[in-house]
Protein backbone atom coordinates (compact mmCIF):
# COMPACT_ATOMS: atom_id res chain seq x y z
CA UNK A 1 0.00 0.00 0.00
CA UNK A 2 1.45 3.38 -0.97
CA UNK A 3 1.92 6.43 1.18
CA UNK A 4 -1.19 8.15 -0.20
CA UNK A 5 -3.45 5.32 0.82
CA UNK A 6 -2.65 5.54 4.55
CA UNK A 7 -2.95 9.27 5.00
CA UNK A 8 -6.06 11.35 4.81
CA UNK A 9 -6.38 14.97 3.91
CA UNK A 10 -7.35 17.27 6.75
CA UNK A 11 -10.76 17.72 5.21
CA UNK A 12 -11.38 13.99 4.89
CA UNK A 13 -10.13 13.28 8.40
CA UNK A 14 -12.40 15.99 9.77
CA UNK A 15 -15.35 14.43 7.95
CA UNK A 16 -14.51 11.00 9.32
CA UNK A 17 -14.40 12.34 12.84
CA UNK A 18 -17.36 14.63 12.45
CA UNK A 19 -15.42 17.72 13.48
CA UNK A 20 -14.25 20.90 11.79
CA UNK A 21 -10.83 21.09 10.16
CA UNK A 22 -9.96 23.91 12.53
CA UNK A 23 -10.62 21.52 15.39
CA UNK A 24 -8.04 19.09 14.05
CA UNK A 25 -5.47 21.89 13.68
CA UNK A 26 -6.12 22.91 17.27
CA UNK A 27 -5.76 19.34 18.45
CA UNK A 28 -2.47 19.06 16.64
CA UNK A 29 -1.15 22.19 18.38
CA UNK A 30 -2.06 20.63 21.69
CA UNK A 31 -0.42 17.35 20.81
CA UNK A 32 -3.64 15.42 20.76
CA UNK A 33 -3.32 14.22 17.20
CA UNK A 34 -0.32 13.33 15.11
CA UNK A 35 -0.10 14.71 11.61
CA UNK A 36 2.56 14.45 8.93
CA UNK A 37 3.75 16.71 6.19
CA UNK A 38 4.36 14.86 2.97
CA UNK A 39 7.74 15.31 1.34
CA UNK A 40 7.73 18.32 -0.93
CA UNK A 41 4.40 19.51 0.37
CA UNK A 42 3.46 22.04 3.01
CA UNK A 43 0.07 20.46 3.51
CA UNK A 44 -0.65 18.28 6.50
CA UNK A 45 -2.03 14.79 6.28
CA UNK A 46 -3.54 12.64 8.98
CA UNK A 47 -2.51 9.00 9.29
CA UNK A 48 -5.49 6.68 9.04
CA UNK A 49 -4.53 4.97 12.31
CA UNK A 50 -4.72 8.32 14.07
CA UNK A 51 -8.22 8.85 12.77
CA UNK A 52 -9.20 5.35 13.87
CA UNK A 53 -7.66 5.89 17.32
CA UNK A 54 -9.55 9.12 17.80
CA UNK A 55 -12.76 7.52 16.65
CA UNK A 56 -12.34 4.79 19.25
CA UNK A 57 -11.53 7.26 22.02
CA UNK A 58 -14.39 9.55 21.18
CA UNK A 59 -16.76 6.59 21.25
CA UNK A 60 -15.37 4.99 24.39
CA UNK A 61 -16.02 8.12 26.43
CA UNK A 62 -19.73 7.46 26.14
CA UNK A 63 -22.03 4.68 27.26
CA UNK A 64 -24.50 4.08 24.46
CA UNK A 65 -25.55 6.80 22.05
CA UNK A 66 -24.43 10.08 23.49
CA UNK A 67 -22.80 13.34 22.75
CA UNK A 68 -19.07 13.54 22.50
CA UNK A 69 -17.12 16.49 23.65
CA UNK A 70 -15.29 16.25 20.36
CA UNK A 71 -11.87 16.17 21.99
CA UNK A 72 -9.78 13.06 22.60
CA UNK A 73 -10.44 11.17 25.79
CA UNK A 74 -7.15 12.12 27.41
CA UNK A 75 -7.84 15.82 27.11
CA UNK A 76 -8.14 16.74 30.75
CA UNK A 77 -9.12 20.31 29.93
CA UNK A 78 -12.42 19.19 28.57
CA UNK A 79 -15.00 17.91 30.97
CA UNK A 80 -18.34 16.68 29.98
CA UNK A 81 -21.05 16.68 32.55
CA UNK A 82 -23.77 14.33 31.53
CA UNK A 83 -26.97 14.94 33.38
CA UNK A 84 -29.69 12.37 33.14
CA UNK A 85 -31.37 12.24 36.51
CA UNK A 86 -32.95 15.19 38.17
CA UNK A 87 -31.45 14.29 41.49
CA UNK A 88 -27.98 14.14 40.04
CA UNK A 89 -27.87 17.75 39.07
CA UNK A 90 -28.78 20.50 41.46
CA UNK A 91 -29.00 22.98 38.62
CA UNK A 92 -32.05 21.14 37.31
CA UNK A 93 -33.62 21.72 40.66
CA UNK A 94 -33.07 25.41 40.15
CA UNK A 95 -34.93 25.16 36.88
CA UNK A 96 -31.97 26.20 34.78
CA UNK A 97 -32.39 23.45 32.24
CA UNK A 98 -35.17 21.03 31.55
CA UNK A 99 -34.72 17.37 32.56
CA UNK A 100 -32.67 15.21 30.20
CA UNK A 101 -30.63 18.19 29.10
CA UNK A 102 -27.06 17.24 28.40
CA UNK A 103 -24.53 19.83 29.47
CA UNK A 104 -21.09 20.01 27.91
CA UNK A 105 -18.66 22.25 29.73
CA UNK A 106 -15.90 23.63 27.52
CA UNK A 107 -13.05 25.72 28.81
CA UNK A 108 -11.46 26.91 25.65
CA UNK A 109 -12.67 28.82 22.62
CA UNK A 110 -15.57 26.95 21.16
CA UNK A 111 -13.85 26.66 17.76
CA UNK A 112 -11.54 24.07 19.30
CA UNK A 113 -14.33 21.61 19.88
CA UNK A 114 -16.35 19.53 17.52
CA UNK A 115 -19.62 17.98 18.59
CA UNK A 116 -20.64 14.99 16.51
CA UNK A 117 -24.37 14.67 16.76
CA UNK A 118 -27.13 12.73 15.17
CA UNK A 119 -30.89 12.50 15.53
CA UNK A 120 -30.64 9.71 18.10
CA UNK A 121 -28.54 11.87 20.42
CA UNK A 122 -30.79 14.91 20.19
CA UNK A 123 -33.91 12.78 20.61
CA UNK A 124 -32.75 12.22 24.20
CA UNK A 125 -32.90 15.92 24.93
CA UNK A 126 -31.21 19.20 24.13
CA UNK A 127 -27.47 19.71 24.32
CA UNK A 128 -26.21 22.86 25.98
CA UNK A 129 -22.69 24.11 25.37
CA UNK A 130 -21.22 25.98 28.27
CA UNK A 131 -18.11 28.08 28.53
CA UNK A 132 -16.83 29.19 31.89
CA UNK A 133 -20.08 28.15 33.47
CA UNK A 134 -22.22 30.18 31.11
CA UNK A 135 -24.40 28.72 28.37
CA UNK A 136 -23.22 29.81 24.92
CA UNK A 137 -25.38 27.69 22.66
CA UNK A 138 -28.01 25.00 22.66
CA UNK A 139 -28.63 22.24 20.19
CA UNK A 140 -32.08 20.77 19.79
CA UNK A 141 -33.63 18.27 17.42
CA UNK A 142 -34.87 19.60 14.10
CA UNK A 143 -38.49 18.73 14.96
CA UNK A 144 -38.22 20.64 18.19
CA UNK A 145 -36.72 23.58 16.35
CA UNK A 146 -39.66 23.60 13.95
CA UNK A 147 -42.00 23.77 16.92
CA UNK A 148 -39.96 26.62 18.32
CA UNK A 149 -40.09 28.42 14.99
CA UNK A 150 -43.85 27.98 14.93
CA UNK A 151 -44.13 29.41 18.43
CA UNK A 152 -41.88 32.35 17.56
CA UNK A 153 -43.82 33.05 14.38
CA UNK A 154 -47.07 32.97 16.31
CA UNK A 155 -45.72 35.29 18.98
CA UNK A 156 -44.56 37.80 16.35
CA UNK A 157 -47.93 37.66 14.66
CA UNK A 158 -49.71 38.25 17.98
CA UNK A 159 -47.46 41.17 18.88
CA UNK A 160 -48.05 42.70 15.47
CA UNK A 161 -51.80 42.37 15.92
CA UNK A 162 -51.72 44.01 19.33
CA UNK A 163 -49.37 46.76 18.12
CA UNK A 164 -51.92 47.64 15.46
CA UNK A 165 -54.05 49.55 17.99
CA UNK A 166 -51.36 50.38 20.52
CA UNK A 167 -52.02 54.13 20.57
CA UNK A 168 -55.76 53.58 21.15
CA UNK A 169 -54.96 51.04 23.82
CA UNK A 170 -52.71 53.50 25.61
CA UNK A 171 -55.43 56.12 25.37
CA UNK A 172 -57.93 53.68 26.91
CA UNK A 173 -55.61 53.07 29.85
CA UNK A 174 -55.15 56.80 30.30
CA UNK A 175 -58.89 57.45 30.16
CA UNK A 176 -59.82 54.45 32.34
CA UNK A 177 -59.90 56.23 35.74
CA UNK A 178 -62.35 58.76 34.38
CA UNK A 179 -64.35 56.13 32.45
CA UNK A 180 -64.75 54.11 35.64
CA UNK A 181 -66.68 57.07 37.03
CA UNK A 182 -68.82 57.64 33.94
CA UNK A 183 -69.08 54.32 32.05
CA UNK A 184 -68.40 51.57 34.59
CA UNK A 185 -69.61 48.19 33.34
CA UNK A 186 -69.91 49.43 29.75
CA UNK A 187 -67.83 48.90 26.68
CA UNK A 188 -66.22 51.85 24.98
CA UNK A 189 -64.66 52.36 21.56
CA UNK A 190 -61.48 54.42 21.38
CA UNK A 191 -60.39 56.01 18.12
CA UNK A 192 -57.93 58.87 17.61
CA UNK A 193 -57.13 58.60 21.32
CA UNK A 194 -60.65 59.53 22.41
CA UNK A 195 -63.84 57.71 23.19
CA UNK A 196 -66.11 57.69 20.14
CA UNK A 197 -68.91 55.38 21.29
CA UNK A 198 -70.10 53.31 24.24
CA UNK A 199 -72.62 50.54 24.87
CA UNK A 200 -73.54 47.93 27.42
CA UNK A 201 -73.53 45.37 24.60
CA UNK A 202 -70.03 44.81 23.26
CA UNK A 203 -71.17 43.19 20.02
CA UNK A 204 -73.58 45.98 19.17
CA UNK A 205 -70.88 48.55 19.83
CA UNK A 206 -68.38 46.67 17.66
CA UNK A 207 -70.86 46.36 14.80
CA UNK A 208 -71.57 50.11 14.87
CA UNK A 209 -67.90 51.02 14.96
CA UNK A 210 -67.00 48.57 12.20
CA UNK A 211 -69.88 49.94 10.14
CA UNK A 212 -68.43 53.44 10.48
CA UNK A 213 -65.11 52.16 9.18
CA UNK A 214 -63.11 53.50 12.10
CA UNK A 215 -59.57 52.09 12.04
CA UNK A 216 -57.72 51.47 14.17
CA UNK A 217 -60.18 51.16 16.98
CA UNK A 218 -59.86 49.67 20.44
CA UNK A 219 -62.91 48.29 22.18
CA UNK A 220 -62.41 47.89 25.88
CA UNK A 221 -64.52 46.98 28.87
CA UNK A 222 -64.62 49.60 31.59
CA UNK A 223 -63.72 47.67 34.72
CA UNK A 224 -60.93 47.95 37.24
CA UNK A 225 -59.57 44.45 36.62
CA UNK A 226 -59.50 42.85 33.17
CA UNK A 227 -61.79 39.92 32.56
CA UNK A 228 -59.98 36.59 32.11
CA UNK A 229 -61.54 34.00 29.82
CA UNK A 230 -61.05 30.39 30.74
CA UNK A 231 -59.96 28.05 27.96
CA UNK A 232 -58.89 24.89 29.77
CA UNK A 233 -58.75 22.63 26.72
CA UNK A 234 -55.20 21.49 26.35
CA UNK A 235 -54.21 21.21 22.73
CA UNK A 236 -50.70 20.93 21.49
CA UNK A 237 -50.29 22.16 17.95
CA UNK A 238 -46.66 21.51 17.02
CA UNK A 239 -46.42 23.68 13.96
CA UNK A 240 -49.23 25.56 12.27
CA UNK A 241 -48.06 27.88 9.54
CA UNK A 242 -49.70 31.25 9.13
Amino acid at each position, binding site marked *: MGEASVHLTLKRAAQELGVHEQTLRAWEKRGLIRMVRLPGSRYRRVPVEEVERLKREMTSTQAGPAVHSGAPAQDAKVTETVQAELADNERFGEGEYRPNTRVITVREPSAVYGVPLDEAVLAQGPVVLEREGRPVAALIAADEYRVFQ*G*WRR*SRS*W*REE*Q*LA*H*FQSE*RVAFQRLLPELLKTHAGQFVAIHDSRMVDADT*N*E*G*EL*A*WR*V*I*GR*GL*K*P*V*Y*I*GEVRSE*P*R*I*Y*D*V*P*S*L*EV*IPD*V*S*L
Partner: protein
Amino acid sequence: MYPYDISEDPPLALLRVQVTDPASGRQVSLPGKLDTGSGISILPEKTATKLGLQAEAEVWVAGYDGAPALLPAYFVAVTLAGHTVTKLKVTASPRAQMLLGRDVLRHFVATFDGKQQVFDLVDP
Protein backbone atom coordinates in the same frame (compact mmCIF):
# COMPACT_ATOMS: atom_id res chain seq x y z
CA MET B 1 -77.87 15.21 14.17
CA TYR B 2 -74.17 15.33 13.41
CA PRO B 3 -71.75 12.44 13.76
CA TYR B 4 -68.75 12.74 16.06
CA ASP B 5 -65.37 12.89 14.39
CA ILE B 6 -64.05 9.45 15.22
CA SER B 7 -60.65 10.07 13.68
CA GLU B 8 -59.65 11.50 17.06
CA ASP B 9 -59.54 9.54 20.26
CA PRO B 10 -61.75 10.13 22.14
CA PRO B 11 -64.16 11.16 19.37
CA LEU B 12 -65.17 14.82 19.31
CA ALA B 13 -68.05 16.99 18.22
CA LEU B 14 -66.78 18.67 15.08
CA LEU B 15 -68.71 20.45 12.38
CA ARG B 16 -68.14 22.82 9.49
CA VAL B 17 -68.38 26.52 10.30
CA GLN B 18 -68.15 29.63 8.20
CA VAL B 19 -66.50 32.73 9.60
CA THR B 20 -67.26 36.14 8.08
CA ASP B 21 -65.44 39.41 8.52
CA PRO B 22 -68.21 42.02 8.71
CA ALA B 23 -65.93 44.79 7.48
CA SER B 24 -64.79 43.16 4.24
CA GLY B 25 -67.42 40.47 3.77
CA ARG B 26 -64.65 37.90 3.36
CA GLN B 27 -65.49 34.36 4.42
CA VAL B 28 -63.54 31.29 5.41
CA SER B 29 -64.92 27.79 5.94
CA LEU B 30 -63.18 25.54 8.44
CA PRO B 31 -63.85 22.77 10.98
CA GLY B 32 -65.06 23.88 14.39
CA LYS B 33 -64.70 21.93 17.60
CA LEU B 34 -67.46 22.27 20.19
CA ASP B 35 -65.97 23.00 23.59
CA THR B 36 -68.24 23.62 26.56
CA GLY B 37 -65.18 24.31 28.71
CA SER B 38 -64.09 27.35 26.74
CA GLY B 39 -65.36 30.79 27.71
CA ILE B 40 -64.51 32.32 24.35
CA SER B 41 -64.25 31.02 20.81
CA ILE B 42 -60.86 30.82 19.19
CA LEU B 43 -59.93 31.11 15.55
CA PRO B 44 -56.81 29.61 14.06
CA GLU B 45 -54.33 32.43 13.45
CA LYS B 46 -54.19 31.28 9.86
CA THR B 47 -57.91 31.97 9.47
CA ALA B 48 -57.56 35.45 10.97
CA THR B 49 -54.79 36.12 8.47
CA LYS B 50 -56.83 34.79 5.55
CA LEU B 51 -59.74 37.02 6.50
CA GLY B 52 -57.40 40.00 6.84
CA LEU B 53 -58.68 40.66 10.34
CA GLN B 54 -57.17 43.44 12.38
CA ALA B 55 -57.52 43.38 16.13
CA GLU B 56 -60.26 45.56 17.60
CA ALA B 57 -59.93 44.42 21.18
CA GLU B 58 -57.76 42.24 23.38
CA VAL B 59 -58.56 39.48 25.82
CA TRP B 60 -56.80 37.72 28.64
CA VAL B 61 -57.10 33.98 28.20
CA ALA B 62 -56.10 31.48 30.86
CA GLY B 63 -55.16 28.04 29.58
CA TYR B 64 -55.16 24.64 31.22
CA ASP B 65 -52.36 25.73 33.55
CA GLY B 66 -54.17 28.89 34.59
CA ALA B 67 -51.48 31.16 33.21
CA PRO B 68 -53.17 34.08 31.43
CA ALA B 69 -51.98 35.30 28.03
CA LEU B 70 -52.94 38.48 26.24
CA LEU B 71 -54.40 37.78 22.81
CA PRO B 72 -55.86 39.96 20.05
CA ALA B 73 -59.63 39.86 19.65
CA TYR B 74 -61.91 40.37 16.66
CA PHE B 75 -65.60 40.70 15.97
CA VAL B 76 -66.93 38.29 13.37
CA ALA B 77 -70.03 36.39 12.31
CA VAL B 78 -70.02 32.61 12.58
CA THR B 79 -72.42 30.37 10.71
CA LEU B 80 -72.93 26.81 11.92
CA ALA B 81 -75.71 24.26 11.93
CA GLY B 82 -77.72 26.51 9.62
CA HIS B 83 -77.65 29.49 11.96
CA THR B 84 -75.52 32.61 12.14
CA VAL B 85 -74.17 34.15 15.31
CA THR B 86 -73.22 37.76 14.65
CA LYS B 87 -71.29 40.31 16.70
CA LEU B 88 -69.21 37.56 18.18
CA LYS B 89 -65.94 38.42 19.88
CA VAL B 90 -63.29 35.79 19.16
CA THR B 91 -59.60 35.53 19.70
CA ALA B 92 -56.92 33.62 17.77
CA SER B 93 -54.18 31.15 18.54
CA PRO B 94 -51.97 28.77 16.57
CA ARG B 95 -54.36 25.91 16.03
CA ALA B 96 -55.81 23.90 13.16
CA GLN B 97 -59.53 24.03 14.00
CA MET B 98 -61.79 26.72 15.36
CA LEU B 99 -62.75 26.27 19.00
CA LEU B 100 -66.46 26.96 19.51
CA GLY B 101 -66.89 28.00 23.11
CA ARG B 102 -69.86 28.73 25.32
CA ASP B 103 -70.20 32.17 23.73
CA VAL B 104 -71.41 30.36 20.60
CA LEU B 105 -73.14 27.43 22.29
CA ARG B 106 -75.29 29.78 24.38
CA HIS B 107 -77.25 30.47 21.18
CA PHE B 108 -78.19 26.83 20.72
CA VAL B 109 -79.69 23.85 22.43
CA ALA B 110 -76.79 21.43 22.29
CA THR B 111 -77.24 17.71 22.74
CA PHE B 112 -74.27 15.39 23.05
CA ASP B 113 -74.82 11.66 22.77
CA GLY B 114 -71.47 10.15 23.49
CA LYS B 115 -72.84 6.61 23.45
CA GLN B 116 -74.14 6.93 19.91
CA GLN B 117 -71.33 9.34 18.94
CA VAL B 118 -73.73 11.96 17.59
CA PHE B 119 -74.58 15.50 18.63
CA ASP B 120 -77.11 18.12 17.69
CA LEU B 121 -77.27 21.88 17.67
CA VAL B 122 -80.68 23.50 17.44
CA ASP B 123 -81.54 27.19 17.56
CA PRO B 124 -84.93 27.30 19.32
